[in-house]
């Protein structure tokens, strides 16, 4: 992977995390802030497929686990976003065309990601994670991410496509 592309990914991930814990937390609905990082991973999955999305999901998730003000056991977002990246990458042939496909992909990704994070908290017996809170938070998170999809995901996907060489595999496969 060219250095430039890696730098752009890193910048995207840092910006997404900075925005979602920073300014966007002012727009939280019942405490739930939009998952920008998840949208970045979805965009990469829909453009490049499962392998790269899993790698970016892992590294981005680990950064989110470690970035202040996180206080949970590290590795939980990393695990959630690896799975999200891989699954969304598998969907890319069906989901990359059209808004409906994107929305379905984001809804699934948000549900899976938030659930894995929450369930890992339940398993680890982390304070504050209770079944009732989890059931309260997940639907809001999914709806919020879906609401942002029409605004943000096409932009992110366009950015990802610009980064790829024109002779890439799915262009030929399509």
């Amino acid at each position, binding site marked *: 992977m060219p250095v430039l592309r890696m730098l752009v990914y890193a910048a995207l991930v840092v910006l997404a995390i900075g925005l979602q814990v920073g300014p966007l937390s002012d727009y939280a609905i019942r405490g739930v802030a939009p998952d920008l990082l998840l949208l970045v991973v979805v965009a990469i999955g829909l453009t490049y497929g*499962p392998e790269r999305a899993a790698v970016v999901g892992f590294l981005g998730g680990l950064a989110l686990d470690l970035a202040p003000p996180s206080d949970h056991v*590290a*590795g939980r977002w*990393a*695990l959630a976003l690896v799975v999200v990246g891989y699954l969304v990458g598998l969907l890319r042939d069906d989901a990359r065309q059209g808004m409906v496909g994107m929305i379905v992909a984001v809804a699934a990704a948000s549900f899976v990601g938030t659930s894995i994070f929450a369930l890992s908290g339940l398993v680890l017996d982390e304070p504050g994670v209770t079944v009732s*809170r989890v059931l309260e938070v997940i639907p809001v998170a999914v709806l919020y991410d879906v609401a942002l999809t029409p605004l943000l995901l096409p932009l992110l996907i366009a950015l990802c496509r610009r980064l790829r060489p024109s002779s890439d595999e799915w262009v030929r496969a399509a």
Partner: protein
Amino acid sequence: MRAWSPTRDRAGRRAATVAGVLALAAVTVIAVDATAEDESPVDPLRSASGEVFGPVETGLDTAADPIEEVADQITTVDGLRDDNARLESENARLRAQLETVDIDRSRLEALSALYQLGDDHGFDLVTAQVTAMGPAQSFSQVVTIDAGTSDGVEADMTVINDQGLVGRVLRADHGSATVLLIVDASSVVGGRLGSDLELGMLRGDGDLSDGGRLSMSTIDQTVQPGPGDIVVTWGSRGGAPYVAGVPIGRVESVESSQRDQSMVAKVQPYVDFSALDMVAVVVGASASDDSTEQAAPPEGR
């Protein structure tokens, strides 16, 4: 539609392997961090990432202030004719300026109230602004502030604002620090009832909305806290993690718990945790009073 081809199939298997290995790596990190006793091997990584993300969060927070004001105004402009729109946005810009002045003024008021509080109690304060907040998806009530070790902030220091007790510092990096709010489910604060000086422990319920309450169980089970009683911090030896005498909240109602035969008081915190902005870290108490007790500091994370 996906056309089957040997190349794709091989790429698919490779992707599955990569994802599987990374998932295992994530589980390993979780296991290492979750089973660590006092010092987790992950801690150095945390502070390294704090050095990177602290300034990013501070920068984005500062950059967002005027944008937020303008964005609020621009939503009303949509759909008007060009001429009109230009005037409206001009108007919006001016109003945004005005509102920024309002924010600045309320910050100034909060600041002077804080210094007053510090003077009253003999605390040395370092003021800071909340720059980031953990979302509900992470199930923990923690915020980042823009003061760190370079300002004298260290772990286990008390954080207050002009309304009362906010929380304590979990970790401090060079220019930022992570604060655990007292409404977090893992937070435990020693409290003293204003009416009869009885002691108790206050636990958060993980809810930072206006509905969030602290539950206080008194140590002496015969004590009956009354609604309206004021609760202040008990204070631990050396003022860490909590200094004594900071107002926490007001008793709202009292329930008796059958399970352990003690009274549990619901305490409404003074601080509005969903609108945290200016806070202050108590970096030293020049006049420590004798109400600091012999008891060990409350067990927190």
